[in-house]
């Protein structure tokens, strides 16, 4: 279990990005974090990843405090961040340097197969499309089999089609080993299609505002009325988190509003 206990972060410039954020995330849970721009989502994720230290409070994974990057925690950023001098295969195997070469090669081959890029094994990252590159980044993060995978707006730079593809694909990959997923997103649709639970954050200073359990089976039908209902409650919560008053959403809600900033 991943436990966040009153995690606060004040940057050296005085910005209080996070204030006493607490949450407990079950092993294997898919958690989406959503909230206004600048409400501290990335800060929170970086604290969990051990990339930045919290000013106070603790992050623990199975009671082990996380203060620096941990072998059981992987992260995927908004950009693929592939190493341009390594082939696709070597990028995927980047985190497996400690393994014997044959074992590494096997794992990489399997991962390549799994993300549908077996034919790109020897390609350079610059030869990939944005969606393919992000697939490689996902494979690279998953191949060491982390217990927790953090994703900071992983699909926001992709077009709508590719985004949907990768969302489905992520779920598919998740089902292999069922790591805990913590996904920061601006896309309500994405949150509801992926998550077991959606946390809504409130800015200045960043803190937990609300949480919504998504009690939907999988695979989820994006067009079902139930799905729409969950989307609506997330949107309503978001509006409240920013003190916006939109009492009657039903009349005005259009499909274009699903993307939320």
């Amino acid at each position, binding site marked *: 279990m991943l436990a966040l206990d009153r995690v606060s972060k004040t940057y050296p410039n005085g910005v209080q990005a996070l204030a006493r954020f607490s949450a407990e995330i079950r092993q294997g849970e898919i958690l989406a974090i959503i909230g206004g721009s600048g409400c501290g989502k990335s800060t929170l994720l970086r604290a969990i990843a051990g*990339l930045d230290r919290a000013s106070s409070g603790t992050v623990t994974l199975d009671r082990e405090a996380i203060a*620096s990057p941990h072998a059981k925690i992987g992260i995927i950023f908004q*950009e693929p*961040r592939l190493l341009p001098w390594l082939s696709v295969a070597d990028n995927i195997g*980047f985190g497996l340097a400690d393994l014997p070469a044959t074992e590494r090669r096997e794992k990489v081959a399997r991962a390549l197969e799994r993300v549908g890029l077996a034919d790109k094994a020897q390609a350079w990252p610059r030869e990939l499309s944005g969606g393919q590159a992000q697939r490689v980044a996902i494979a690279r993060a998953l191949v060491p089999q982390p217990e927790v995978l953090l994703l900071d707006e992983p699909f926001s730079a992709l077009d709508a089609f590719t985004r949907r593809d990768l969302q489905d694909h992520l779920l598919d990959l998740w089902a292999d080993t069922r790591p805990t997923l913590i996904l920061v997103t601006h896309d309500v649709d994405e949150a509801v299609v992926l998550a077991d639970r959606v946390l809504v954050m409130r800015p200045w200073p960043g803190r937990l505002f609300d949480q919504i359990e998504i009690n939907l089976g999988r695979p989820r039908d994006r067009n079902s009325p139930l799905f729409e209902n969950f989307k609506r409650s997330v949107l309503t919560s978001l509006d409240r988190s920013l003190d916006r008053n939109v009492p009657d959403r039903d009349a005005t809600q259009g499909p274009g509003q699903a993307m939320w900033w």
Partner: protein
Amino acid sequence: MISDAPVLQQTSEPGDSTIAPSRLSRYARPLLGVLLPLILALGWELVVWSGWSNGRLVPPPLRVFATIAELARSGELIRHIAATLWRVGLGFAFGVVAGTLLGAISGYWSLARRLLDPTVQALRAIPSLAWVPLFILWLGIFETSKIALIAVGVFFPVYLGVMGAILIVDRKIVEVGRTFRLSGPAMIRRILLPAVLPAYVVSLRVGLGLGWMFVVAAELIGASEGLGYLLLDGQQLGKPAQILAAIVIFAILGKLTDWLIEVAAAPFLRWQDAFGRAKEI
């Protein structure tokens, strides 16, 4: 002959015709660049040959080549080339080692950068040839002062190149290294070195170019052998063909050594190959 025409047309598929121009241009483009000097050389050769000019001050190409051949036959040429190459090689090696070490230290540790960089930048502002009298006083007129001068010329571009390249390594990619918990040495080997390599190769090539520049300066100041000595000797004895011969050899050696660096680095820079090729087009 006429009956061949339709056959020819048939064999040239549409696919071929699109490849043909690009293949042609790949070979034609470098050739195009050689055209102008070739025409000028040929023209001058003809002018002298036909007696319009005696070509005493500007000897025609054939006379220059004859001089080179003459020098080569007497064994002089090899001696001079060896002397110059030795100086450039040694100066380049010292300059590269010092520039790489100090550049890496300045790029990696900000404290070292604050301590070191202002001094290096101040020294860089001095035109390097101004060191010549001092070097001669300190190190004597012979090899040591020459090699020191060349090393100084090579040092600055390498230092700046290495430091600058380390400073602009993408923080985001370093973070990837951190998430995979790379140790310090592993971070250097697996992230910093490859990230810095393209800029490093450029700085080596710039440094080598300066090395060649400074070897000429060093040998003009006083040497009993070397290509620079050939230049000076040619001037003092009024042998323009010998001067031009030395210049031609400088050009060939400069280009050749630069090409060697390029070729040696190519396997490590394959990943960014297409960028270079795209720029060329």
